[in-house]
Structures are given as C-alpha cells and as structure tokens.
C-alpha cells in the first residue's frame, strides 16, 4: 500500500461524511479515480453508511406521541405520561 493509499484511507471517513476541506476532497477524489482497490473500499464504506441510515429511519413516532407534541406546540401542555 502506497503513501497515497494510506493517506486516502485515513481521510476516508471525513470524505464520506463530507467533512474534508476542498483541497483534501480533491486529493482523495484524484486518488480514488486512480486506484481501484481504494475505490472499492470507499464504495463499500459509503454503502455501509447509507445502509445504517436507511435501516434506522423506518421507526416513526407513534401517533399519540405526535399528537402530544402538537398539543404542546399549541401551548396546551398536558402532564407527561
């Protein structure tokens, strides 16, 4: 694994989470275009993140909780529970 690969792997989370500076983004992108093995790791980790989000976004608040919050928002709070 070359220096570029190591550096890219160190920056991979930041890249996936959109936390890098523009300069670092360009560097990571350039390396991923050149290096299929690193690009595969990137694709995999990015998919894991998407999966966590997708799987965990399926639980909506129960209707009675939603209604309770709505009442609070209209400044007619009832005791909790």
């Amino acid at each position, binding site marked *: 694994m070359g220096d570029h690969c190591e550096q890219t792997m160190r920056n991979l*989370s930041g890249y996936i989470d959109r*936390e890098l500076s523009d300069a670092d983004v360009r560097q990571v992108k350039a390396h991923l275009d050149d290096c299929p093995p690193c690009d595969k790791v990137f694709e995999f980790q990015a998919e*894991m993140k998407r999966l*966590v989000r997708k799987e*965990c976004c399926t*639980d909506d608040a129960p209707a009675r*909780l939603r209604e309770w*919050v709505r009442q*609070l*928002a209209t400044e007619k709070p009832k005791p909790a529970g």
Partner: protein
Amino acid sequence: MSSDFSLFERHVDALYRSALRLTRKPEDAEDLVQETYLRAYRYRNRFKPGTNEKAWLFTIMTNVFRNRLRQRPAPEDPLDAPGTDFSIYDQLRREGMPVHLMSPEEIIVDRGFGDEVKHALEELPIPMRMVVVLVDVEDFSYKEVASILGIKIGTVMSRLHRGRQALQKKLWEYSGRPKARPVAVGAH
C-alpha cells in the same frame, strides 16, 4: 411568549427513532422524547432563533438520557478493544472472497449483513452508539455532534471510527462468520 414552538414539532420522528436506538424500548423512547419536549418547552426562551433547532433538541435529549443512565446505572457494555481494525470488506478479502469484483450491495445485502443493522447498533457501547446515530442517521456534522455531546471533535471522530468498526464486527458475528467460499475468479 414564544409562539413558534411548532418549529420543534417536526423533529419528533428523528428524536423518537434516535431515542429508540438509545433506550432500545419503545415505551422508554416515548418517555424520553416527552421529557425532551417538556424541557424544550420550559426553556424555549433560551433557544436562539435562527440557530439549529434540531441540534438544540438533540442536546436536550442526550443530556436527559445521560442523566437517566446515571440514576439507573445499567451494566456497562464492554468496550471493544481499541486499535483492532475491523471491516467486513477486509475480512472477506482475507478469506479469499473476490470482493474487488463485487458491488457493495452484493457484499452487504446478498450476504445478509444488512438485516440486523438496528440490532447491531443497539448493542454498541452508548458513547459510540450516540455518535454513530447522530452522524450516520441524523446527518449532523462532526462539529454539531461535538457541541451536542459536549466533547471534542477528535473524540467524535475516534468514537465514530471505533463505532463503525464495532458495528461491522457485530454484523459479521450475526451472519454466522461466513466462511470463505472459494470462487474461481475468471479463467485468466
């Protein structure tokens, strides 16, 4: 005085699903969200209009949650040994799977790693779980998470890193530690 409390209403689903990951129980999650909104209501004049109301609500909720933990100490989850890097991708590669020829979906979905994400997440130690939920599910920035939890950005990053690895390790374990299935990779 504040009539725009309805601004906070729209985050009830986000708060609830995160509360569920933290408490693991629907009735506890509902209770946590109620207390969060009651506090938000009581302190609504402290909210600065124009700032991120979702982050403000999550700050309240994580504080309430941590206070409750202190009152009713649950047995502490064992932290995975730090420093042991783990990824499903590397693990499969080591076992001889031609991961470089597979799409992420083929690796994750077809091999069943996706089925128990919630369960795996709920088994992570709480400090890691909070960071993974806030970043990966709620899409907060590292800086926002640092502010919500009152920790340094470096701590956010290391917990996120360890949390994601621990999550993949759990998924790997649930999948019954798939053994390498030797696959003829091309004829060349």
